[in-house]
């Protein structure tokens, strides 16, 4: 909960455009980087695919191209993207596997631990959670 107003209200006035709202928890460049990572993870972007240019991102999100460039630079530093001079940015061939490994490593700390904490606060026994997980596993 924050008593202050949320950070970014991003809206496009053009109805034909998809409207994205940035959340209020992190800088825009990091959110763009996270979205690209998600696209790599879910297979929307594959290894050696070209990523849209910073200018296209700038127009789409109505942001300064330097902000989009900062997202790209972060992804290059992390090895998710690589740069071909004069052509553009591409997805590193090993990025999908590297990102999956990364997410696996942070899964228990970032997903399971907060869930357990929440369960304690509202009084759900851990055995109930395990039971539910087993049910979901059977359905799948």
């Amino acid at each position, binding site marked *: *909960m*924050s*008593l*202050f*107003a*949320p*950070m*970014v*209200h*991003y809206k*496009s*006035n053009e109805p034909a455009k998809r409207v994205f709202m940035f959340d*209020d*928890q*992190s*800088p*825009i*460049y990091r959110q763009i980087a996270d979205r690209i990572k998600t696209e790599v993870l879910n297979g929307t972007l594959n290894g050696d695919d070209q990523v849209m240019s*910073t*200018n296209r991102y*700038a*127009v789409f*999100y*109505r*942001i*300064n*191209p*330097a*902000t989009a*460039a*900062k997202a790209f630079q972060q992804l290059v530093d992390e090895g998710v993207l690589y740069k071909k001079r004069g052509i553009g940015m591409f997805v590193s061939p090993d990025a999908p596997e590297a990102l999956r490994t990364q997410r696996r490593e942070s899964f228990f700390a970032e997903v399971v631990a907060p869930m357990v904490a929440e369960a304690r606060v509202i009084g759900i026994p851990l055995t109930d959670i395990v039971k539910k997980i087993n049910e979901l596993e059977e359905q799948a």
Partner: protein
Amino acid sequence: MNIVADGLRVNYGTVRAVDDVTFSLDGGKIYGLLGRNGSGKTSLLSVLAAFRKESGGTVRIGGRPVFENAAVTRDVCLIRDAGETVDIGTAADALDFAEWLRPNWDAEYAGTLMDRFKLKRSANVKAMSKGQRSALGVVVGLAARAPLTMFDESYIGMDAPSRYAFYDALLADYMEHPRTIILSTHLIEEVGSLFEEVLIIKQGRLLLHEQSETLLARGTSVTGPVARVDAFTSGLTVLNTSTLGPTKAAMVYGDLDAASRAGAREAGLELGPIAMQDLFVHLTDPDSDPVLPAPVPAEPAGEVR
């Protein structure tokens, strides 16, 4: 086109509208110039555009003095809050005048923008609404393609769809024809994401000049139980606080390292960002004099984006 101001002053009688302002802009970027009403924004822009002579100090654009220097002023375009101010005839006359004045004028692009803002060439400028005059000013300012283009609250009277059309056109044309753009605005929520760097003026003085990301990264809202928030923020620059029963939220301005962020979270405090608009409002509070960290120098321009 770089802009260097050194000890710049503008006096109106005994009033110092611009007081010892020093900055250096690399150029080729979109800059936000923010300040409350009467803070000296318009006076500063007027000097940059050679509409008025500085009372003291110097300003150089592309290394050259500005005032009564035609070689510089034809490269500088300032659109003021009244929009198009050449109201001696029709919109077509205003465009003809701009074409005569501006070496980089793009008549075709001006026509596209006229259509986008639904402006008629035959319309008498004097008879236009505020919003139409502002839109005509925007057309002139963008199609001039001046190496230094400044808009001083040029959206007055424009409705929201027109303002967004302006922002979209500005961004697209800036990327296609990179140049130095300075936007002075109150509508920070709408346009803040376009700024690469921000200058904030308070009572005639330059309060800060930072990259947008640095400014935003330095603002942190700290929310939690009153006593814990007080303990955490003691010794930090607090711009504003508000309380809701047992909960307190404090706006902190400054660099918080990873250790103190982790410490805050362990203490059960919630950390969040602060919108540029809120930072602006509280940084320029006339009753406070916040201690600001040293500015982070901008990365040199030149990387092709």
